């Protein structure tokens, strides 16, 4: 059934979507996305509505299945708006962009694609909450608006040095880069940010990824007559990382790209399939790498 859906989707979008030469689309990824369409979206949207107005305490209290292997954990951090007395960007903080639908939808894909015993729900945790140590993988996005408190800096630093792994996503252009760089320098001043070479293990941890694609936000890309980048001053997607003195990558940085939107809108027939596919592949690879290295 899912393969028919895939075919239907591909047929429907073909005139609008230009395939990138050499891209390796995996049918299993597509099957996963279709599964998300068929079974997950209604639930995800419902959860999103419930949590949109939830307090932080209510958000933090909702993990109800301890003992699972993997929790897709989203870093709750302070942004500039909140640090200046506001409620946070868009009323709930830039950390919550795409949340929770992207998280839950990605987990559906992750569980279909791998053997990982993953908790099916989202799991946002504050950076200065000691409970974050239960989750060696955290995801943070929109870091162009990040403005960490001292407590969060300390919490994140110790988390990373203890063995945690941070994925950065969805920030664009020199200004946002500058902000992120300033923030991460507060956390890990001793380690430089470096480009990840294409032969790095993270690019072959599960899927063989031969090219770093730019994953656009929703409603962007050729189908909509808009570029996939968001800041004309720097349009190239980059995969960068921070490594400790043992050569272990502790932070992976997805700059000028938005994996989260692809996870969130993979079921959208207008979202470019190749980018969604890439976003899922890189997401799986990052998690496998974090768990095994």
């Amino acid at each position: 059934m899912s393969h028919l859906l895939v075919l239907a989707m591909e047929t429907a979008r073909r005139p609008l979507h230009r395939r990138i030469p050499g891209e390796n689309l995996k049918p299993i990824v597509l099957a996963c996305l279709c599964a998300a369409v068929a079974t997950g979206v209604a639930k995800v949207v419902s959860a999103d509505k419930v949590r949109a107005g939830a307090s932080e305490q209510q958000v933090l209290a909702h993990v109800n299945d301890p003992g699972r292997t993997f929790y897709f954990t989203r870093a709750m951090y302070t942004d500039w708006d909140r640090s200046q007395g506001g409620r946070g960007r868009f009323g709930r903080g830039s950390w919550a962009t795409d949340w929770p639908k992207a998280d839950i939808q990605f987990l559906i894909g992750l569980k279909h694609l791998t053997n990982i015993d993953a908790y099916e729900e989202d799991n946002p945790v504050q950076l200065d909450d000691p409970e974050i140590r239960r989750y060696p993988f955290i995801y943070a996005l929109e870091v162009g608006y990040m403005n960490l408190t001292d407590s969060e800096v300390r919490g994140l630093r110790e988390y990373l040095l203890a063995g945690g792994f941070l994925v950065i996503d969805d920030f664009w252009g020199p200004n946002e880069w500058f902000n992120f760089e300033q923030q991460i320098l507060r956390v890990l001043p001793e380690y430089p940010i470096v480009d990840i070479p294409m032969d790095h293990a993270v690019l072959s941890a599960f899927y063989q990824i031969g090219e770093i694609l730019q994953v656009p936000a929703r409603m962007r890309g050729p189908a909509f007559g808009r570029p996939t980048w968001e800041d004309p001053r720097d349009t190239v997607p980059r995969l960068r990382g921070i490594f400790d003195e043992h050569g272990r990558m502790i932070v992976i940085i997805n700059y000028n790209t938005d994996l989260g939107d692809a996870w969130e809108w993979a079921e959208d027939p207008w979202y470019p399939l190749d980018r969604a596919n890439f976003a899922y592949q890189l997401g799986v690879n990052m998690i496998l790498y974090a768990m095994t290295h």
Partner: protein
Amino acid sequence: MFEFFFKYRPVVFRQGDLVFQSPIPVWLLVLGGVIIAGVGVWGYARGRRNLERRPRIILGALRVSAIALLVFALTRPMLVIATIVPQQNFLGVLVDDSRSMGIADRDDRPRGAYINDYFGEDGSALLSALSDRFKLRFFRFSETMGRLGDVSELTFQGTRTDVASALDRARLELAAVPLAGLVVFTDGADNGDASLSEALLQLQADGVPVHTVGLGVDRFDKDIEISRVEAPRRVLQGSAVAVDLTIKQSGLGGRSVDLVVEDEGRIVKTQPVELPGGSEPTTVRVHFTVSEEGSRLFRFGIAPAEGEIVRENNVLETLIQVEDVQRDVLYFEGEPRWEVGFLRRAVADDENVRVAALVRAAENKFSRYGVTSPDELAAGFPDTREELFQYDGLILGSVEASFFTADQLRMISEFVEVRGGGLLTLGGRLSFAEGGYAGTPVADALPVVLDRRSGDSSRFFAEIEVRPTPFGLTHAAMQLAPSQEESQERWGELPALSTLNLIRDVKPGATTLLTARADGVSDPVVVLASQRYGRGKSISFVVQDAWFWQMHADIPLDDLTHETLWRQLLRWLVDGVPNPVSVVAGADRVSPDAPMTVTAEVTDSGFIQLNGAEVVATVTTPSGISQDVPLEWTVEKDGEYRGSYTPAEKGRHEIDVTARYDGAVVGTGEAHVEAGDLGAEFYGAEMQSDVLKSIAAETGGQFYTPETISTLPEDVSFTESGTSVFEERDLWDMPIIFVLLVAFMGAEWIYRRQRGLP
């Protein structure tokens, strides 16, 4: 006193036979006695009706006793005893010439000084009394035995005391002459290899009594002795080692002393030890890390206390082969888990342990980490024994039993049982009973009991605070800090982990090292247990998130608990895993000129024992001389070969064993032996009176000390061994008989008077 009342010394009664030589038949005397006694008793019973019952009984008993004693004397009892004919018999005198005879523990005089007193140039009453009765033949003995012309030939420098061999040799040398017995002057601190019971059996059969003269004291006033050391023969370089020492003391109970461990002269550990209170030895476990590669001599010592006479027994040495080799561990996970990354990271710096990880990331999709060649594990989990058995250790994570074929399950079991590898099973949602292992060959190898029914689909989850058992506290792999006390404290601070597997029991023979309390379970649950299984070992670590001891917010960033635990666990896992050819010397330290055995176990690449191999041990002495020693199949055990070698030099000997089968080398192995003065004479060096009494009792002889030795010449004379005559010695005139007779009659008379009877 005994002799005053009984006329003769006890030995006469022991050696003699009681006979009655009355001219009147004994039965007639007894009958007469009974009649007379009966009349007397009747007189009291009937004739004195006014007497109460109790006085009647007492008076009757006294009269019966007096009459019985009189009848006994009239039967003319006597002892018939065999006595040697003077100067017609030989007496073997064996003198201990070992180093322990130099110990001055009695009246501040060396034990050997008593020998000079008895048999020195000036002579003595003892020598004179013995010479009057016997032809004396003197022998000296230590590790060897020989004739002794004069006591001045004694050096007291022998390195061993072999009483059994000495008795055997003396018996054989004097077999052709009438032998009245053997007298052994020794401290009894026997440390020879020969069987004492066999030697005594021969002497019993020949009717030769052995008299023993114990020199020295039963218990030193003050002494500390490290009497035994139990250490692994081989360990990986950098490993934490646990060594058990047996320590005993006298006169210093409860005192705290420092135990010092030296690695070829370099102090590697100083540990305070409280000496045991009583006379029983106590076992002390000491942990240290072996850092230098090669064959290393470790010395364990306690500084002598003031007033200790024997100081040589305060130290003990052992040889440990510290191997700088790489052991390979295969870690298989049926699903991606955090443990993979954290475990690999924890042991990444360990050059002696390589972890090759295989993770089933998706159905039929495997990821490999830490492999050394493109082919390693390329086809997933090994399908053949050769491929699996090339690893020294195997870690099974969360992977269901049904993933494996029946043959693979058997292979895993045989990996432990036959190959001698280490199997570590980790907790997880697909581990143990939850993974369907109950009833499989792997379950047989596990140290834990899988008691959950396979149909039980309820999910168990518990957060548990892991704590070591008393045994776990002392185990080398469980040491988280330099001292045991600090380690125990550290265990108490560690945050809770979680488990998905409920393990309540371990198998008989298995050992539990870690336990925990779990909500809803009355008894502590098993967290870490181990057992020997065939040639190898099996360990189960039931938690699913040991990585939390690295990540938890309460664990300081520079804390190495997680790394230490995994490093020690994996080293323990592969510790002692045999190679295709493994070599064991009979002892790690031997005396020069003492033969030792070399044993090799030979298998093929699939670890199947080979019986038809050509096995040669090449022994290289400290001076570089090599000698080939062929090892022969023992027949008793498949794949076992044995040979003997006698080191002629002092120092470290290297033994290299090569095994060939059909001309091709199947494997090599090595061992080391230190030849030198073992100082064995100073361990267990107190006078062993129990042993000496036992020797005497078994053969019909007697045990003496310098205080009682004056009676030895006469005692030795009473024997049937050699040329002897039988003597009759009257007993009727023993003073005790007259004393008792007077006492009975007098008591009866006084009692009657008190009662007013005539």
